[in-house]
């Protein structure tokens, strides 16, 4: 079932169709929410609330556009709302907070430093950097998801990257010296 069909069925009262949407996008949504909130438990709460908001707003979805970018706006609103009202959680394992997957392009210890530097960034900067570099979104796509002009994306991304570089330098991370 494609997204448009699922949405139309939801509108007609078919709850199972909504299950399709949830199961199709939950993993991506949890990954994005961890990218903003920095931990899995808060991310799960935010994703749950976002899907409930989404269900109630399905009659306003534009069926000619893709579902997930529309849903993402709801999700990030939920994340920031949740993030502003909660204290930072104690996490029991690295898996709870990890944004990055292991890859051959980086040593595990360097990945941990990069992960740590990302977590030390403000949520907005972390969100922007991960959407741009991990998901490969263009400035236009970023502008749509974050609901700001592309020029603002350019400035914010530049400052976010400079902050990340400075944090990595503090950790004596040598991978971005540019030499």
């Amino acid at each position, binding site marked *: 079932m494609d997204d448009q069909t699922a949405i139309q069925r939801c509108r007609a*009262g078919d*709850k199972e169709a909504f*299950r399709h949407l949830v199961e199709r996008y939950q993993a991506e949504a949890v990954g994005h929410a*961890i990218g903003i909130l920095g931990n899995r438990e808060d991310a799960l709460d935010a994703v749950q609330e976002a899907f409930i908001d989404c269900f109630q707003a399905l009659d306003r979805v534009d069926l000619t556009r893709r579902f997930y970018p529309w849903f993402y706006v709801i999700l990030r609103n939920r994340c920031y709302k949740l993030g502003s009202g909660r204290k930072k959680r104690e996490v029991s394992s690295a898996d709870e907070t990890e944004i990055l997957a292991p890859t051959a392009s980086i040593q595990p210890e360097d990945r941990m430093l990069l992960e740590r530097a990302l977590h030390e960034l403000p949520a907005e900067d972390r969100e922007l950097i991960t959407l*741009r570099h*991990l998901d490969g979104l263009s400035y236009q796509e970023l502008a749509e998801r974050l609901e700001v002009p592309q020029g603002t994306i350019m400035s914010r*991304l530049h400052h976010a*990257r400079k902050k990340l570089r400075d944090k990595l330098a503090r950790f004596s991370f040598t991978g971005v010296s540019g030499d």
Partner: protein
Amino acid sequence: MTRVDCENVGRAAMATEDGYVSELSADQIEAHLADCSDCRGEVRELRALANLLDGQKRKQRTENIWERVEQHLPAALPPRSRSRVGRAFVILGLLLLGYRLLEIVPNRHLGLLFKLVPILLVIAAFSYLRENPFRINTQLTLEGR
């Protein structure tokens, strides 16, 4: 017009790397970088960081949250279409306007029943929407509670 200074050139240079066409041309950027070693160094570092980040992947998650979501979905399905509600009120408005125009026609003899038409129209509209206008919504909560 964007000034060609260190801040703007650094930002534009990285945006160009990202495929975004900034207000500074490639020639302006290159000319500034050729003259300014600080900017050259900064752009080199930021390019290295961007390359490092481009080589990373987001960790795949396997959570299944359907049960958590399903528990909190409203029982009433589907959510009422706003366009349907809006359409109903537009039609109601037009009918009431038509009624008002009829009402101001001089020498009309439409009887007592005619005076009940607006009330009947409103009752018909709320019946169509299956909405009780006197219902108190007890599910409203204040933000932060």
